[in-house]
């Protein structure tokens, strides 16, 4: 939990009628400006929360397509790490923040763009058109 997140009182929690949903930040296609250490830390925190691949450009010039599933912030950039999977390798990999020069949110955000209301609207339209077996299907993996 981030330090600045507002905390609820017990009374607020117990009287909550509807839980506020999350408004998603549109990150797909974003290339954060990395002017300093804090920018890099903030961008990698967003990459960790992002449900799509990102492209990391290393200080060596190598480019790595990665799904960042964990971050281990430390006192210095050299002591801070991201953990990720790449599309081409089966094993987990780890990279120091200090090795990262640039970050791009290049992959599709898999948590964006699907709304309950859209499903209800489409369902009603297709039902009215006489369609049967109406369903949302998971996206193809290939």
């Amino acid at each position, binding site marked *: 939990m981030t330090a600045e*997140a507002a905390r609820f009182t017990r009374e607020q929690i117990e009287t*909550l009628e509807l839980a506020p949903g999350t408004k998603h930040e549109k990150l797909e296609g974003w290339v954060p400006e990395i002017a300093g250490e804090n920018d890099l830390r903030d961008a990698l925190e967003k990459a960790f929360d992002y449900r799509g691949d990102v492209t990391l450009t290393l200080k060596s010039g190598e480019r790595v397509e990665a*799904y960042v599933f964990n971050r281990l912030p430390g006192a210095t950039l050299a002591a801070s790490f991201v953990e990720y*999977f790449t599309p081409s390798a089966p094993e987990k990999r780890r990279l120091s923040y200090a090795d990262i020069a640039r970050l791009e949110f290049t992959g599709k955000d898999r948590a964006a763009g699907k709304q309950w209301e859209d*499903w*209800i609207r489409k*369902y009603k339209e297709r039902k009215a058109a006489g369609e049967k077996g109406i369903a949302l299907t998971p996206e193809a*993996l290939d």
Partner: protein
Amino acid sequence: MWTVATYVLKKKLGGNQRYPLVLMLEPLFRCNLACAGCGKIQYPPHILKKALTPEQCFAAVEECGAPMVSLPGGEPLLHPQIVEIVNGLVARKKYVYLCTNALLLTKRLGEFTPSKYLTFSVHLDGQREHHDMSVCKEGGYDIAIEGIKAAVQAGFRVTTNATFFDGTDPTSVRGFFDEVMDMGVEGIVLSPGYSYDKAPDQNHFMGRARSRRLFRAILSNRKKSWKFNMSPLFLEFLMGKRNYECTPWGSPCYNIFGWQRPCYLLQEGYAETFQELLDTTKWEDYGVASGNPKCANCMVSCGYEPSAVMEGFGSVKGFLGMVRGTFNKTYPDQQAQAMLDEAAHKHAPELEETSV
């Protein structure tokens, strides 16, 4: 029940502060449904293609030591080695709950062997129309029912597992309980939905006040024919008769990323080992007592049922409460009946608009 009771007592006598009851072992994230309330499967294809090996599953089970293992996902029946995983867990005398939407259950049933250690926990969110809308698949209910009946017929233990969101009609839920008990299931499992921040639907997560009213309406004036595969104290918690703090380490989660921090629902990072998870998670940052907004609406079984079970088997008062709740308790409540009547009036003309 005996296994869990002795496990809890041993841990308590051993002075263990934090110990797991149910390992949530996610062997894969891939699913054959795209439910609106689910925040578990929104990953790039290369992540959805990954799966835990049987060896990784067994290592996690040994490391954690919980007496029960829940296999959610994703859809576990899509895992090519799920039979090997289940057989390995049963051989270790773990009580396995294979959580499935049952779309493939009839087809794959013959690969499994009935055992007292294996239960198919079939995802059913309510009566036909409600379930189909909830899982965004017309016909999903009928396929699941076919699977349930086949599994019961073949001698497997079967429970149903329902998640409820805002707009749920309590009268319909009670009708649903009648339906599933008639199918011969061993018990019903239920929970309010958690506000996954990655779920497509962000507008129908109930807060605690509304959850308590809904479950009070559903679970009061209970029929004796209904059986629940849950702690009676947890059901009383849902009805607003008890208050518990969250026990996030009670249902730890392991998947392809590692040991999920802090719980099955939140993804705030991963630990390499179960011990590291226990030792390095800032537990005081989670649960309603922390005021953490991410925990504010949560009354989900993975956090609060361990609290109820630990009270039930960990104190005389809790044990007596559990006994009272287990035997012949119908929870008569006139106000709850009035809530049902009111809900029936509200839902009748607006069923199509409010079904979730």
